[in-house]
């Protein structure tokens, strides 16, 4: 199958799959009877009048959706849930063939969870950000199609046959590697988070965006496969005593360049071609990118074409004009690279709506660019009292750790927060502490505790406390 054919068949299948008119998803009876009637029935039981109401509501609801039903209703409404009592289309007809979708896509019911741009954040979509919908994710791994995007001059599908990696500078031998070469080398597979240095940057001054997709969605986590940087540099005879710095350069129009700290990053940096078991996606650097665990995403140069070992930093545009942090004294912090310990509750989170009071599994993500997550505490009262959450395994270094905590919501307003601690003992700070130390014009490296306010109507919103 050619690429075009695959695209075509996916298109056709999507049309067939779209359930707008065809699916007979029968609503549960609760969805079309009023709260008052339920309360009435709960209080006074069923009599003929109330039974009549139920039937009426039931049939009117079925009127539109059940046009295809030949037989009359076999059950009275009060006998139970039509989702159980009625035969569904998928129980009674033949399903689709294998490989109907040669490259599988999520259920149509998941179509709301997609990467999105933040309106007004950037002015040109080729140099912009698309945020990961963290509010809908589970566990620690970001699906490849939802990995956040940040490009500086648009993205391309680079031809892997003509892609080259050059290693030069302070090496005995400047060398060139093809993808054929690189993929023969000893590889490692490691799970790491990648976070843009500007993640949560909009919130330095005040609350600016509604949902966790926009506050924290420049964050993803994948299992990356590639050759350790150290193997490549040693193979080229790099002078690692004098060469403490490395320039990584991308093959896109921006020729993206970043200086890498070899003293800090040599041991775990990977020259990677794979994410989550398949080749890198073009938006994420296909066929080759640098993976620099714990360091801000801008240094994970995509479409990687060149590595140069040197004895001083390069002061590239994205190290001397952008990705610098303005301090209150008018100085800019330059080469601030490490993503410090941070966490956020993803469910419930800003812009979400709870249905009712009662039990909830409150869940979120924690990560640290300096090591492993040691503990996560959760507060439901705006930071006055804290309980320690469960950490799900495996807990990996410089990777996302999922945390969960049981909560019974009594229906009264609450402010939810999470606070992560890493294995260096560093405790995630409040926004106030960050502003006290760095002012509010820093943009980058905001790892503050996030607060979500839950109102008694079940709506969750983004707030800052203190």
């Amino acid at each position, binding site marked *: 199958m050619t690429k075009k054919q695959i695209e075509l068949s996916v298109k056709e299948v999507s049309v067939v799959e779209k359930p707008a008119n065809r699916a007979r*998803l029968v*609503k549960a009876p609760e969805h079309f009877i009023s709260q008052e009637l*339920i309360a009435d029935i709960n209080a006074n039981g069923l009599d003929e009048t109330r039974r009549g109401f139920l039937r009426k509501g039931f049939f009117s609801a079925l009127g539109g*959706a059940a046009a295809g039903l030949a037989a009359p209703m076999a059950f009275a409404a009060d006998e139970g849930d039509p989702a159980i009592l009625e035969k569904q289309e998928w129980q009674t007809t033949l399903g689709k063939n294998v490989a109907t979708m040669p490259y599988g896509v999520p259920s149509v*019911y998941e*179509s709301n*969870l997609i990467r*999105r741009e933040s*309106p007004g954040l950037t002015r040109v*979509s080729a140099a912009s950000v698309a945020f990961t919908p963290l509010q809908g994710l589970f566990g620690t791994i970001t699906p490849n199609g939802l990995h956040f995007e940040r490009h500086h001059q648009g993205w391309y599908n680079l031809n892997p046959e003509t892609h080259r990696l*050059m290693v030069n500078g302070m090496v005995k031998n*400047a*060398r*060139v*590697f093809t993808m054929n*070469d690189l993929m*023969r080398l000893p590889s490692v597979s490691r799970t790491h988070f990648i976070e843009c240095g500007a993640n949560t940057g909009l919130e330095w001054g005040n*609350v*600016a965006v*509604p*949902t966790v*997709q926009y506050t924290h969605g420049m964050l993803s986590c994948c299992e990356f496969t590639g050759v350790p940087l150290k*193997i490549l540099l040693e*193979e080229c*005879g790099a002078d690692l005593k004098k060469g403490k710095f490395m*320039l990584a350069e991308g093959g896109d*129009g*921006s020729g993206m*360049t970043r200086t890498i700290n070899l003293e*800090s990053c040599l041991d775990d940096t990977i020259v990677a071609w794979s994410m989550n078991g398949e080749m890198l996606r073009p938006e994420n650097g296909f066929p080759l990118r640098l993976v620099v665990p714990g360091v801000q995403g801008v240094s994970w140069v995509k479409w990687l074409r060149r590595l*140069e070992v040197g004895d001083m930093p390069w002061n590239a*545009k994205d190290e*001397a*004009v952008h990705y*610098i942090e*303005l*301090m209150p004294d*008018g*100085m800019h912090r*330059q*080469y601030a690279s*490490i993503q410090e310990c941070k966490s956020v509750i993803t*469910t419930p989170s800003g812009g*979400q709506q709870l*249905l009712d009071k009662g039990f*909830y599994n409150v869940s979120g993500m924690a990560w640290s660019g300096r090591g492993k997550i040691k*503990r996560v505490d959760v507060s439901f009262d705006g930071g006055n009292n*804290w309980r320690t959450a469960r950490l799900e395994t495996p807990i990996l270094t410089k990777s996302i750790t999922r945390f969960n905590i049981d909560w019974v919501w009594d229906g009264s307003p609450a402010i939810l927060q999470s606070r992560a601690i890493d294995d260096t003992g560093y*405790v*995630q700070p409040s926004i106030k*502490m960050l502003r006290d130390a*760095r002012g509010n014009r820093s943009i980058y490296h905001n790892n503050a505790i996030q607060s979500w306010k839950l*109102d008694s*109507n*079940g*709506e969750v919103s*983004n*707030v*800052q*406390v203190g």
Partner: protein
Amino acid sequence: MYRLDKLFAHLSLIALAIFSAQLAGAQSMQGASKFPGIGRSATPAEVIAWDIDVRPDFKGLPKGSGSVEQGQVIWESKCASCHGVFGESNEIFTPIAGGTTADDIKTGKVASLTDRKQPQRTTLMKVPTVSTLWDYIYRAMPWNAPRSLTPDETYALVAFVLSLGEIVPDDFVLSNTNIAEVQKKMPNRNGMTRNHGFWSVSGKPDINSQACMNNCVKFVQVGSTLPDFARNAHGNNAEQNRLYGPYRGSDSTKPPLAKLPGSIGEGLAHAAETHAASTKGPAALFKNENCSACHAPNAKLVGPSIADISTKYQGQSGAVDKLMAKVKNGGSGVWGSIPMPPQSQLSDEDRKTLVVWVLSGGK
């Protein structure tokens, strides 16, 4: 036996010859490769072609020169449409020039970064090194045609940018011989610090928080919330969450609910009813075909906004055919001097869909 020995000797000579050739090819690598057969030496021409970076010590800077005057001519034809004639534009990218003073050039630290008199930081207020400007312009500009400038053109453009900040006079000629002197005049050359713990994994954090567990805050005060007018500014939250399950999105097109929807989700959208159509249809086509790189719904970017186009052609007969031809073949002059490139990759059907949608104001 003799013949066989001779044959072996002959073979090993050949093998030696091949081996030597390989060695020569590898430019006499010192120490044996751990991974024989993988990779090859880069030729000098290849290194020159790719190793174009320029460091603050000007290692890598090609020889050449260019004047402010020459720079201005190139600027107006290739740069001004995005950056403004004086590098002041804030439309498409943040401004290049402004906010620096003669005093800053003396001190090497931009005062407006501290006194906050300048509302927005410009490039010249931040960049400490001329090398950065040279490197970036040469490697990545212009925006839609990177790597199209010659070294001399780059010198000229850097000279012009510096003249906008009055760092060099209007009759200046920048070259590889005087660029280091110019770097000593950069207004923010002393404005960067590496005195922080974020460069290395073992660096010291600047904040030392504690993990208090009980009675930590006397009074919890909400300091900042999203203003009501911004409730729907990021689109409807309901369409950005699952339509089933415990965590729905709030309908941000409407005021907050008066009470809890209850386990039945009263008043909320349900899975069978709504599917975000945002990945299909003309709006998605507009984005996927990169029309949105130049055209925004309401604001002028590189090209006119959808709203402006729709207003201009409202009620005109033949507008669809006219614009379909323009999209296919490109055009210029109607909305300014920046031409719209031809979009010949579009099918007739897609082209029509897009034109009709744009003429409807993107509805």
